[in-house]
Every structure is written in C-alpha cells, then in structure tokens.
C-alpha cells in the first residue's frame, strides 16, 4: 500500500505545477508584457462587416427586374449616446418620444458598445434633417447599405422578397455564417437562389478605443477581406408580356402561366391579386406584409404553384383521350353518341368522332371513352377490373407531371391530386367501387387537383408532342452564364408522338369554331390550339380555365389562364390567353375588342347556365 500512497505526492505536484504555471503566465501577461495594456487603451479590434452587393436579376431581354438601392439607417451606440436631447431628435425624425425610448432600451439590451439600428431607412428629407444636426448627437451615426429596388412593380410572387433573418433560421445550421440583422431571401427566386445572390461578406478590422473612437485599421488591413458581390441572374421572364398579363388580370383573381415549350422557360408568371414588390423594401415592410397576409383575397397565396385543390375540368379530357389512344381502346375515328342519360351535355351534332368530341367537349363521349380505358377486361370481376384500370391510368397521368411537384425553381410548389385506387378503397372499401363511382374523372371533375403551372406544362407537352422540360424561371447564373444543366433534360410521357396529332387538330377547332373563339388569332395568321374548362366551385361561381399553345405548326408559347369565379373558360380565360399569345408572338395587340372585353370584367356578370 505504501508505494501507492506516495502517489498522492505526485498528484499534488501536478496540481501545484499547473497553479505555478498559471501564476507565472499571468505575471508575464499582466506585469511584464505591456502590449495588452496598450491594446486596452487603443483598444479592442472591432470587426466591421462589409456587405456585398446582392446579385441583380434581369429578364430574358436584359431589362432589369431587381436592383439595389442605397438606404440610410440612423445607428446608435448606447455607450456614447449620453445626455442627448431626445426630444429634439424626435422632432427631427417626427417620431413619438416613446418610440425613441423604446429603441434606446432595445439597443442597450443588445449591446452598449456595438451599434444598433435606431431608425431604419431614412427618407431623403429625414436624411437631410438628421445629417445637418448629427454633431449634436454623439453616439449616433448614419450607416449606408443597400436594399432591393424594383423598377417595374411586376412579378411579385416569383421574385419573392428579402427580409431580416429570423431567430429560428439563425439556429438552423443551414444558415451558418448569418448574423442577427442580416437579410436573407424569404420567398420566390430570392429564397431559391439565396446562395448565389447573397455573395460573400467581407470583414474590416478596426481599432476602437474604450470610448468607441476609431483608431484606424487593425494591422493596416492585413486581416481584412473584401466582400464579393452576388451573382447576377438572367430570368426567363419576358417583362413586357408579364406586365401586360398583370394589366389584364388587374382586379381579377387567378393565374397566368406561359411557358416556351421547347425549353421549359417561363415567359410569364402571374398570381392575381399581385402587389408592388417595393412594398416589402420600405420602413413599413412589417405593416404591409401583415396587411397582405390577412387580406380576404389571399394576395400572398402563390396561386400558379399552390392552387392545387380545384379539379381542372374539361381540359383534362385531353389527357383521357391521349391515354386512351395510347392504350388502343379508341382511334381518332371512334364515335360515341351524345347520350345525355350517362352524363349531361349541351346541344351539338351527334354522334361525334374524336376531333368533334374535343371541339364540342362532349361529356357522354368522354364518359364512354374513359370507361373503355378503365374497364379493359383485365379481370373478370368488375370491381377488380376498375381498380387495375385506374391504377394503370394513374401511372400514365403521372408521366404528364400531374400529381407531383414539377420542380420549378420557386419554393412552395404543391403536388396536386390524382385519384388512386387507394383513395377510393379508403372511402368506399376495397372492391366496393366501380366505374359508376369514378366516372366524373372522365370529364376532369371529382378527385383531381391540378395547379395552373401543371396546366401550362401540359400544354407544353402537347406542343412538343410528348415531352416537357422542367419549367424554370432562371435561365442562367451570371449574366453570360450557361443555362443550368438540370433545365435541359426532356421528360417523356407514356404517349407516343403520333397520338398527339388528332388532339391538336381538335384543339385548333375549339378556337376556330368551338367554345374559345375569343382566343382566335386567324386574322393575324396565327393558329391557336386550345381547350376551355370549368372548375366546379361549391363556394360560389365556378372558376374558368383556358389552356392553349400557338402557333399550331411551330409552337412558341404554351399558356394556362385560370380566372377565379370566371364561370366560362371561353368568355373570361380564352380572350386573356389570346391577347397574351398575340402580344408575345407579334409584340402588338390587334384584337382590341377582346382587350376591352377583358378589362371591362363583363364576363363576371354572365349568368351561369
């Protein structure tokens, strides 16, 4: 035991050695080395963050969509702001004294020596007032930084906005390197491309004495880093078309999405009602934001990618026809009678072949075609057969980009709903539902939900005769950057190209002599192919849909127009689409009577049925 007992001395010696080393080290730091005393006098190194310019965003023709504008904040360093005439400061800024006191209290709570914002975004007039009198207010200074500015007031929902990073985001490791008060993209392109747009911050180290007086840069800037500006972006948006679409939708509710079929580039992206993006850059950002968030028209709802609860209506008949052709259960010449005992219809010639059925949107025709598609006799049991048919059908529908996120570069996209056997099994029980339960799918009603973006993408598919490129709103990063690779891949549908021909012919007839004559551009030599639809709305007047692409021979634009409470696609949505197509393809508008009709909002007064 004795030899172990001696170890107590070793342990005590270890303790004492550490104690002595510490005391000696302290003697060196505190008594011998005078550099720390000097450092305390000339004092602390103060890191000053150099904010980079956020990347600019251009439209497809090089017009500026988003820029940076200088803003000036009045800053306060509480330690130096002593015995100031708060009342006079309030008079200069025209703010109540309580607000000033509150700000000073907040600043003190944050830090005595580090600056806090006392008053954000001074107007030019305020800036002039304050700057002249700044000398009387020690501890206050003006800090210049940049904020987002929008020369055109367009594209609010797609651009998104930036705002101060939230405390929750600060705790998230994805946002490592951000500090409280930093700005970050909160929605839209600003959020999606944050890492490119934000650039790289720099740091300048300044020597500051105890009283906060600047003593020059630390070690002549040897440790300073320069800020690097964020990447500029080129959008696929056509600003003129976008602005025109917003003009047409002003006062209405709904969406317009226009896509270049060959590339998937989004030409116009309208969510109505929209707002001036400049509302989110000013002092009143918080107030404006709350007002928009609470308004009954749901302005902040990003309709083109989020409105996925409503059935697409008749436009979905095109999907049913395409899959039925692919499965060989119909041919272009298959005729069905307009048997109104199956499902109701309106007056038109009967019986019809596929072309006529598309042109006249005959409900019983599609009831029978869809029945042939769903009940192919793969099982002798009707219930099982329906379930198999629906499952096979659903798989093909998904290849059109329905029922899933398309992957657009705007955050918040919804999937939509496509009916599945599981869904009906849950509601009715397995083997307890058959075609008579689900027939409304044949005409685009029932358990279907499609976003306006998916509708526009569907038009791109028909224009391309069988494939789509993921819709996207940013073409390249950097002004002369190459297109992003993920935006060039083609996604093929299950339907072979030749089956699209009869559908396209039928769609041309819809515009020439069918329900969508208001979208006709024959007089300027453009053949528009389209299809109208009505989305049933249990809460009020039905929503109107029109989808189209043009020109028929060499499609350059695919478009979906969705007008809430627009009742008839042919009356409200079709003329808007026609105007957009003409505007894009010819840069002028000749169908002035349609423009007048749309802007008059007369279509809202047409009686249903």
């Amino acid at each position, binding site marked *: 035991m004795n030899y*172990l*007992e001696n*170890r*107590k001395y*070793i*342990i*005590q010696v*270890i*303790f*004492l050695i*550490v*104690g002595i*080393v*510490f*005391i000696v*080290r*302290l*003697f060196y*730091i*505190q*008594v011998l*080395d005078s*550099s*720390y*005393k000097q*450092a*305390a*006098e000339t*004092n*602390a*190194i103060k*890191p000053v963050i150099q904010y980079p310019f956020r990347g600019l965003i251009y439209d497809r023709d090089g017009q500026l969509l988003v820029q940076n504008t200088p803003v000036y904040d009045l800053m306060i360093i*509480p*330690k130096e702001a*002593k015995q100031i005439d708060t009342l006079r400061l309030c008079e200069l800024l025209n703010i109540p004294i309580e607000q000033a006191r509150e700000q000073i209290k907040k600043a*003190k709570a944050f*830090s*005595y*020596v*580090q600056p806090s914002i006392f008053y954000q975004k001074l107007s030019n007039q305020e800036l002039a007032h304050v700057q002249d009198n700044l000398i009387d207010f020690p501890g206050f200074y003006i800090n210049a930084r940049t904020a987002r500015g929008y020369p055109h007031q367009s594209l609010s929902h797609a651009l998104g906005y930036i705002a101060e990073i939230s405390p929750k985001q600060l*705790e998230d*490791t994805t946002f490592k390197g951000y500090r409280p008060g930093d700005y970050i993209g909160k929605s839209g392109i600003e959020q999606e491309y944050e890492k490119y747009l934000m650039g790289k911050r720099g*740091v300048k*180290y300044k020597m500051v004495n*105890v009283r906060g007086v600047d003593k020059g840069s*630390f070690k002549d800037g040897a*440790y300073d880093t320069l800020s690097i500006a964020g990447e500029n972006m080129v959008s696929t948006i056509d600003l003129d078309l976008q602005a025109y679409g917003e003009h047409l939708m002003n006062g209405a509710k709904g969406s317009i999405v226009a896509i270049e079929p060959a590339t998937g580039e989004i030409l116009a992206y309208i969510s109505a009602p929209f707002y001036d993006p400049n509302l989110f850059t000013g002092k009143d950002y918080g107030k404006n934001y709350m007002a928009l968030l609470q308004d009954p028209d749901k302005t902040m709802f990003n309709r083109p990618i989020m409105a996925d609860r409503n059935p697409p209506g008749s436009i979905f008949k095109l999907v049913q026809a395409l899959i039925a052709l692919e499965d060989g259960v119909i041919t272009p010449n298959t005729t069905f009678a307009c048997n109104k005992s199956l499902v109701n219809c309106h007056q038109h010639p009967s019986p019809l072949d596929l072309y006529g059925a598309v042109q006249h949107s005959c409900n019983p025709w599609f009831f029978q075609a869809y029945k042939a598609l769903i009940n192919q006799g793969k099982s002798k049991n009707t219930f099982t057969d329906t379930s198999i048919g629906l499952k096979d059908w659903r798989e093909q529908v998904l290849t059109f980009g329905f029922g899933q996120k398309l992957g657009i570069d705007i955050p918040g996209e919804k999937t939509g709903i496509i009916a599945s056997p599981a869904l009906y099994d849950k509601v009715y029980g397995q083997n307890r539902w058959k075609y008579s339960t689900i027939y409304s799918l044949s005409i685009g009603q029932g358990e279907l939900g499609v976003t306006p973006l998916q509708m526009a993408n569907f038009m791109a598919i028909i224009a391309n005769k069988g494939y789509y490129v993921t819709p996207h709103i940013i073409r390249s990063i950097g002004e002369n950057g190459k297109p992003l690779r993920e935006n060039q891949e083609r996604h093929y549908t299950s339907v072979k190209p030749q089956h699209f021909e009869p559908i396209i012919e039928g769609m041309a007839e819809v515009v020439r002599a069918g329900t969508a004559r208001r979208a006709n551009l024959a007089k300027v030599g453009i053949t528009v192919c389209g299809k109208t639809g009505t989305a049933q709305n249990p809460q009020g007047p039905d929503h109107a849909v029109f989808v189209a692409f043009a020109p028929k021979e060499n499609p350059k634009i695919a478009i979906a127009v969705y007008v809430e409470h627009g009742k008839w696609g042919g009356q409200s949505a079709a003329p808007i689409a026609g105007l957009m197509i003409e505007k894009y393809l010819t840069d002028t508008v000749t169908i002035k009577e349609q423009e007048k009709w749309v802007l008059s909002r007369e279509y809202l007064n047409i009686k249903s049925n």
Partner: protein
Amino acid sequence: MAVEQKVLGGKIVKPSSRRNSRRISQHIDWLTILLYFLLVALGWMNIYAAVYSPDNVVNIFSFDINSGKQLVWIGTSVILILVLMVVDYKVYEHLAYPIYGAVILLLLFTLAVATPIAGSRSWLDLGGGVRLQPAELAKFATALAVSKFLSSVNLRQQNMKDQMILAAITFLPPAIIVLQNETGSALVFGAFILAFFREGMSPFILIVGGAAAFIFIMTLLVPKLYLIIGIFILMGLATWLDYRLMRRFKTMIALFLLVVGMIFSVDYFVNNILQPHQQNRIKALINPEADPLGFGWNVTQSKIAIGSGGFWGKGFLEGTQTKFDFVPEQSTDFIFCTIGEEHGWVGSSILIALFMLLLIRIIAVAERQKSVFGRTYGYCVASIIFFHFLVNVGMTIGLAPVVGIPLPFFSYGGSSLWSFTILLFILLAIDANRSQDLSR
C-alpha cells in the same frame, strides 16, 4: 457535558440523532467549507462586476441581473448542503449503482426529448422556465459508481476484465454527452485518470497519455518537419548518452516511427476529421489573431482584459474591458477575466492559491478515509475540480483551447453551482462520519 463528549469522541456510538448531528459537526472539515463559501462569495461579487454598468447601476441583489439570480442559486445550494449532511452517509455507497443507472437513463432521455438550444441537446425543460442539465449530475454519479467499483476490485492486479468494466463505467456518460453536443462537459471525465492512478493504475498510462498530449499540442504549434527533426535529435541524443537505451536500439527506432506516425495522424485528424468549429477552437489556441472574429476573438479579448489589469488591478467595478461585450460570456465561462482585470496579478494569484488550497485539502481529506470508497471518491472530486480549473483558467490566458466549461463555485449558473456543491458535500458527509467506519 465534558464527560459525554469524551465518550462520544471514543468508540461508543449512541443512536441519537441529536448526538449524531453533534458528532458530525465535530468531525466536519470546516476548512473545506470555509474555502467553499469564500469561492462562492467571491464568485458572486465578480458576477456582479461582470454585469455592472456605470451608466445604469442596478443593485447587486436585483433579480434582473445575474448576480441577483446567482443569489437564489447560492441560497438553494445551502439547503442542498443541509440535506446532504442530514441524509445517512451510507446511502451514497449503497446506492452508488442505482444513482449511476438513473443518471444514465436521464441522459438518454434528455438526448431523446431535448429541443436543441444553440445546437446542444443537453437541457431538460422542467417547466416554469426552469431547466436542468443532466450532464452536470453525471459527474458526481459517475464518481460514486467508479469509487464503488474500485472498492470491490484491485486495480493493481491488472485484471483485464475489471479494467474494461471500469473504462465502461467511466466513459459511458461522456459518450452520451458527446451525442448531446456538449463536448466540453464530456472531456471532464478524462480527469478520472488521476483517481485511477492513485488506486494503482499503471503509471505507464499516465506517461503515455501525457506524452501523447504533448505531441498533440506540439504538432499544432510547430511545423511537422521541424518537430520530427527535433524529436529525432532528442531521442538520438538520449540513445547516444544512455547505454541502456543504446542496447534497445531497434525499440528506439520503432518508437520514433510511432511518434512520426502519430504526428501525421494528428495533423490529418485536426484538418480532415474535426468539424470546422472544433478546428477553429484548436487553431485559435495557436494563433488567436488569425481568426479575430471567431474563437480567436474570445481569446484575444480575454487576454487583453486580463493583461490590462496589471499588478494591482483596476479596482472593484472599475474594469472597462470586461464590461459590455468586449469579452463574451463574462459572467459564466470567462469570469476569470473580471478578476484578472479588476484585481490584477495579485488578485488572480490569490484566487489560484485558493483553488490550490482547496485541491490539496480535498486530497488530505481523501487520504484520511478508512474506506477505499471514500478515498477514491475524494480523488474523483479533486480531479474534476482540477480539470475544470485547468481548462477554464487556461483558456482565458491562452494556454488551453476554448472549451465552454465553468470555473467551479465561481461562474454564474445554477446547474454548475449545484453540481459542484453536491460533488463536494457528499465527500464532506462521508468524511464527517469516518469515525463510524473506525468503530466497525
């Protein structure tokens, strides 16, 4: 009266609780208690100094500031002490394993349910704004379990199985704590090695551990090539001068290659395996100015604060560097800066001396225990306090990496004060009853 006392001081023990408490007060180690209260009181005053602002003077007792809150923690600690002294001292030994098991479960439970606070999943929300850090409880619980185990085995016999069990008991809690992202608290458990050494662990482990730590730090400080040349010359000289080593020439070469291998693996470990924030902590130790905004900022600012204190210090509440935000976490992990600045070299040295005194007193208390359990526990207490002292003071003067662990009895914070109070007073409770072991 005098007669009765004499009898009590002898061997006759009467089962009277009044007499029992009197006997405890006779045997209690008043010097340790004095040192404890001295450190707690000085800590409290310095917490006030750290949050004191000449522009906005708040009473030291105000609950709006840390010093007022700390007073509540101190008050509750006194109640804890009374409870610990009244409880039958034998429960600590008898219930060592159950306590340990319960704490392990609590650690796992915390890991599962805790909502991360600044990346750490170590806080258990008890509701009403009260939070508990079970990692703090793990220290005394592990000390109890380790002591209980060592009192039943003999470490000197190099029994592999026993050593494995001991290692498992010691390193299970820190493993869970690392998963909670509290690496600093987990490192503390390495301190138990000192207690094992006292109980017969081979000194080889201590030496190898020390040498490894030395090479680890040198690898960070000195370029690899210079270090290898230096070690080569050193070992070569030793081999040249000592004929015993000369005879083991091959062993020396193997040893040298081993060291070179270690240097490269340390280099790889730091630069490729450690996460960036861990790298920064270690690199800030070597060259704080390279990262003045990050962890280097803390070290630089704390050295400036301490260094500006000079010989005598600037005086109580007169510090400028430790006020406001120049030094981060002034009242918790960087509390030593306040002493350094306001009380200078003299004050800092006195504080260090107080800690030395306390540690040596604890060793003395441990050595006078008649049971292996009591003695081992005493050494565990000393080791834990020593490790906290070493790392906490070391980091403020740039001798240890920035690891967020508090200065015992001194730093602001309820969990930490309670944990050290329990740790120390279990020892004093065992110590006060040591004569009962004598009479057994």
